[in-house]
């Protein structure tokens, strides 16, 4: 048993030291009737590394690998090229196997990295403070709604129809238990977002307006008027960003007046991984920092005048404040935050802008080509690297037909909104820098056949 440093001899010796005759004596607190005697039925014994690697490789090969085919999926998870150095660095044992940085004197590496990460997130989002990460974009959004509730002492949030439906599901699930009231709606396949309707629906009981930017269909809307309307009513604007690369090219929500900006950080540094682990980003105004959930790394100066970093404002957190904490979150997405931060440092402002431009250019090219297929129309007027097509047929079966042709051709709205007829023909297509001209041509050809 290769992972166990104790040998049988060590074990006998240790038993002697503690004065026990057998290992089972150490389990004496466990009543006899609760003890398992003998092995659990149906579970195999240990295996060699070679055997386990083979087993896992066999399972891995049963999946279609995004990088092996023309690939156009997005809707909250994006396939970007991650520099090899990112994965190399996050695997250094000092990061990978370190504990939560509760003891700053042995965790300065993690703490400084988190501090830098927070700064990057705050600047990207156009906010003043950011935390050390949440589980993912969806849980970050719910935490933002709860935080708005605490800040405004109101419990009625209005969620735009453009918010990712899974994010909305998370919020509605949770709201059932906390008693928050959420106004939600389903999107329509139109050029315009629901900004006007949202502004309409804000009233004196509204805690927050929640808007995704770009939205689930890829549309981009100016947040300024929504922020103004929310603020006029004493409500907060929560902006949700599922594709952070977009912010290399379009205005940040913070610039447009958002009070809390949350989102998914996966695009930068974190692979697709079938949905997790990802990294939730969370930023807000400095004046709300005490209502913020999650960990926060802060810069400090020690007695000798040397700069150092610590977890700060911990009185918001569960390990100090228990049931009065701003959140129950403890373990978050530390290592994914590191990956985000390294990738973002490699990009820098220059690289991020270039990456974003490249994404947009490819998406423009793809949108032109695909919307040229007879019967296929482009829903969007505006988009970043993701847009929605309206097909002449239902999109969900079309996606399966595309798989048969070796193309992973986007996410059907039929999957995201099952049973909603008005959306059934919608196909959301994401186009990143990893998509080649040949990929676009292959998709165009395959889709042309499928919609015939």
């Amino acid at each position, binding site marked *: 048993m290769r992972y166990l440093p104790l040998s049988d001899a060590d074990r006998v010796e240790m038993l002697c030291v503690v004065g026990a005759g057998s290992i089972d004596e150490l389990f004496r607190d466990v009543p006899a009737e609760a003890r398992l005697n003998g092995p659990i039925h149906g579970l195999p014994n240990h295996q060699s590394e070679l055997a386990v690697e083979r087993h896992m490789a066999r399972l891995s090969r049963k999946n279609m690998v995004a990088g092996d085919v023309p690939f156009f999926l997005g809707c909250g998870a994006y396939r970007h090229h991650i520099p090899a150095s990112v994965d190399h660095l996050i695997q250094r044992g000092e990061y990978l196997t370190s504990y939560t940085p509760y003891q700053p004197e042995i965790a300065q590496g993690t703490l400084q990295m988190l501090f830098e990460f927070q700064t990057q997130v705050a600047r990207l989002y156009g906010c003043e403070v950011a935390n050390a990460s949440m589980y993912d974009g969806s849980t970050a959004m719910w935490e933002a709604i709860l935080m708005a509730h605490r800040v405004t002492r109101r419990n009625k949030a209005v969620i735009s129809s453009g918010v990712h439906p899974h994010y909305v599901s998370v919020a509605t699930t949770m709201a059932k238990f906390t008693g928050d009231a959420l106004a939600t709606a389903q999107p329509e396949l139109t050029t315009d977002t629901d900004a006007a309707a949202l502004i309409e629906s804000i009233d004196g009981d509204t805690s927050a307006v929640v808007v995704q930017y770009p939205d689930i269909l890829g549309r981009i809307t100016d947040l300024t008027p929504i922020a103004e309307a929310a603020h006029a009513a004493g409500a907060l604007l929560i902006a949700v960003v599922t594709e952070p690369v977009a912010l290399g090219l379009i205005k940040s929500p913070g610039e447009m007046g958002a009070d809390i900006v949350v989102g998914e950080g996966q695009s930068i540094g974190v692979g697709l991984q079938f949905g997790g682990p990802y990294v939730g980003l969370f930023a807000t105004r400095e004046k709300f920092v005490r209502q913020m959930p999650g960990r926060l790394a802060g810069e400090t100066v020690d007695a000798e005048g040397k700069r150092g970093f610590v977890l700060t404002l911990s009185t918001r957190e569960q390990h100090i404040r228990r049931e009065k904490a701003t959140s129950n*979150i403890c373990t978050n997405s530390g290592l994914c935050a590191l990956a985000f931060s390294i990738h973002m440092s490699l990009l820098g402002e220059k690289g991020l802008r270039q990456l974003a431009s490249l994404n947009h250019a490819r998406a423009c090219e793809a949108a032109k080509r695909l919307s040229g297929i007879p019967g296929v129309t482009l829903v969007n007027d505006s988009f970043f690297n993701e847009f929605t097509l309206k097909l002449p047929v239902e999109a969900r079966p079309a996606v399966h037909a595309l798989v048969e042709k070796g193309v992973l051709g986007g996410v059907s709205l039929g999957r995201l909104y099952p049973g909603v007829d008005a959306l059934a023909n919608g196909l959301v297509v994401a186009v990143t820098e990893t998509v080649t001209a040949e990929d676009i041509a292959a998709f165009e050809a395959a889709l042309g056949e499928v919609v015939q």
Partner: protein
Amino acid sequence: MTVNASGWRASAPANAEGQAQTVTGNRALMLEEPLLFEIGSVDQTGVDFDDHSAPTQAGAVGAELRPPPEHRLAGLVRNRPIGLAGLSEPEAVRHYTRLSRQNYAIDLGLFPLGSCTMKHNPRLNEKVARMPGFADVHPLQPQETVQGALEVIDQLAVWLIKLTGMHGVAMSPKAGAHGELCGLLCIRAALEARGDKREVVLVPESAHGTNPATAAFAGYRVENIPANAAGRVDLEALKARLGPDVAAVMITNPNTCGLFEPEMKAISDAVHAAGGLVYCDGANFNAIVGKVRPGDLGIDAMHINLHKTFSTPHGGGGPGSGPVVVSKALAPFAPLPFIDRRDGDFLLVEEESAGDHHGQTFGRMTAFHGQMGMFTRALAYILSHGADGLKQVAEDAVLN
């Protein structure tokens, strides 16, 4: 001491509350490393893009590094500086290599804190998690293209169910605290389904902070469970407190000192007799794997920290993964999505109405299907150890 949380050179003033923080102990490990923003600049980058005007082999579609002149950005082009410092690749490698050396970690030696549950992170796990069929698969790919991924989740689920002797498992929670939330929401949904609106959750004072915080997050009022002189649950006092307002009792077993709660079964019986349910914080499950099954102790829900019990890396604070095993009574209420089998295929059930076994699911907890990257690692670890090895781990943990 000044604390500047927002980032480098922000003009935030010294933060009064921050002053409560002190930097503890020695700083022997500290070699000062400048901040990213002090080394890097907005003009430097460590990433190249193909900007050749002629199409390259990689299929670049033209000169596309300036915002395209006819863009479709709703007039919202970001013109103001963002303020993100960039590093060339060598600078980045040096910065993060040097920074890493200011951390202590399991790879360097035993851990002073949380050592009972912090364990070696096998490198096979890292290799497996990076197999393209796991690392490069989108969560919304059509299900026929992700059968291997669903099978990983299913195989891990079977192990967790068998090792715990429970009825079902919810795989999507993202960490221990998220698992606690999942368990409490199952409990709440089950109680509400029978029209029983209970409002209190009992938590021992010694519990990890996430326990009371989660109970509050789930909309419950938290009360302490009395302890006896030995620091364990005072069964008689508990019985006296139980009643129609108590939804659940949260017990950490084994507790944070690694000690097993000897009266667990009696506690469960008492809670059940009073119409409540039993949540077990399984963060220390690792010490009893193969020796005791929570399912035999009357527990209704328990989270398992894969990052503690099943060797996925702690990563300086995450990501974790907190699957929740549940009793037969709670299984119908477990969250979406979950995995079914149909005609030999694995089926990811994402819709509330679908699925035979979880008709009353309380809903969705996260955007996708949980921490796949942790599942592959945990499964590789579990298969490596096998039933015999996991039991040995428990015995060694208790020996230590």
